[in-house]
């Protein structure tokens, strides 16, 4: 799989869009439901082209997110590296899962990520959560099929145009 130009462009666009979606202000009740957009992007690109998007890619994106929302430098890098690692391990299975099963797997990944955050923040200092803390992974899982199909479609179109 060579790194074609269309490919890189879609990659960059998806990262920028995910970053904006991460930052965009939501009404108060919806704030806690915001999924971990960048994780969804990382999962997609890791499944699709693991050769170029391994742990290093996830790590760098994590650093970007840390600067973006002002968390401890390395926190998101840590989280995304773990996600990317698990996806790489189970990639060959996840790829051929039916869509609903894939969404469940993504939900489990994001849930695991929430636990990691809890640990990291508990070590770094005080951190209080409520039950709504666990809702965001469900939203992420519910959105996964749409994101997957959308990115797949955009990417294949880009490829057709190029050939």
């Amino acid at each position, binding site marked *: 799989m060579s790194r074609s130009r269309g490919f890189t462009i879609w990659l960059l666009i998806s990262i920028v869009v995910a970053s904006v979606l991460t930052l*965009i*202000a939501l009404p108060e009740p919806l704030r806690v439901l915001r999924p971990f957009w960048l994780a969804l992007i990382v999962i997609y690109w890791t499944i699709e082209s693991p050769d170029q998007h391994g*742990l290093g890619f996830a*790590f760098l994106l994590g650093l970007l997110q840390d600067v973006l*929302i002002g968390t401890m430098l390395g926190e998101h890098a840590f989280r995304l590296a773990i996600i990317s690692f698990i996806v790489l391990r189970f990639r*060959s299975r996840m790829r051929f899962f039916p869509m609903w099963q894939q969404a469940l797997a993504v939900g489990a990944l994001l849930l695991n990520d929430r636990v990691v955050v809890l640990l990291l923040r508990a070590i770094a200092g*005080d951190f209080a959560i409520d039950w709504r803390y666990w809702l965001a992974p469900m939203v992420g899982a519910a959105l996964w099929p749409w994101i997957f199909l959308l990115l797949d479609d955009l990417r294949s179109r880009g490829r057709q145009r190029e050939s």
Partner: protein
Amino acid sequence: MPVYSAEGAPLFSEGSGGSLRLLAYLAIAAALMAVDVRTGLLRDVRAAASAVIAPLQTVATAPLRVAKAAREATAQRAGLVSENADLRKQLLFAQAKIDRLAIVQEQNNRLRALLDARQKLGLKAQLAELVDVDLDPYRHRILINQGSAHGVFVGEAVIDADGLVGQVLSVEGERATIILLSDPSHAVPVRVQRTGLRVIAYGSGDLTRIELPHVPFSADIKAGDLLVTSGIGGRFPPGLPVAIVYEVETDNSATFAVAQARPLAGIASATELLLVSDETLALSPLPMPESEFVGPPEGLRTAPPGEGAP
């Protein structure tokens, strides 16, 4: 070469997801976090990176700004007129209050002069607007559009029209991060206005509640009491309203009372904020003692540390 399980080797290149690499990355991330939290070494890196990130933030806030502008443009004239009338009324009330306060202030100054107390300079205040980007809802941080370029400094108190919101946590050129007083790692020294009792109010992780965990049983505090900043510690100017106590109960060990209070400021909804600092504080940071030594006074010392005995 060892044979891996079925989902292993053939489908992805060797090493791209190795456990060792994961450990290496996690170690780097952990080291970064430790350095970032414990020391200020990465502050410059972060500030530089933030300059690059600023355009993204601008893009993210665009839809909201457009919506706001559209709403203002299409607002009904009648609505504006009634709003204007309301504001006028509020202004009148505020003006009346200020007039009364001015008299009290004058009286206060006279009394202070009689007591020969140190004259307090006024408050330095600076208007800042919220940058409408969403940081993690569980982190109780907000971003404002004023930074070191505008003279904002770390530790400056942040208020809105109703009360204390928090304090400045870090500053960059054009932006500053504020930690809200509801953050579990935030504490503010307060005074019960009715009785003068001094306590410390901690954030609870809930935007609508702060906690006063260690109030002596004998202390006179009850629901409805107003908490204002005490000014102890020098961080917050004294007298800013903070919260209203709504519940007092005993804690688990039954040795202290625990009071819950509701912040007066619209922490979740404030869009215009005021950065305030005591002018005296801003001009001269707290005087630090010359030496670290805090032992007995001069005459009682036998051999001061550092000067080796002959």
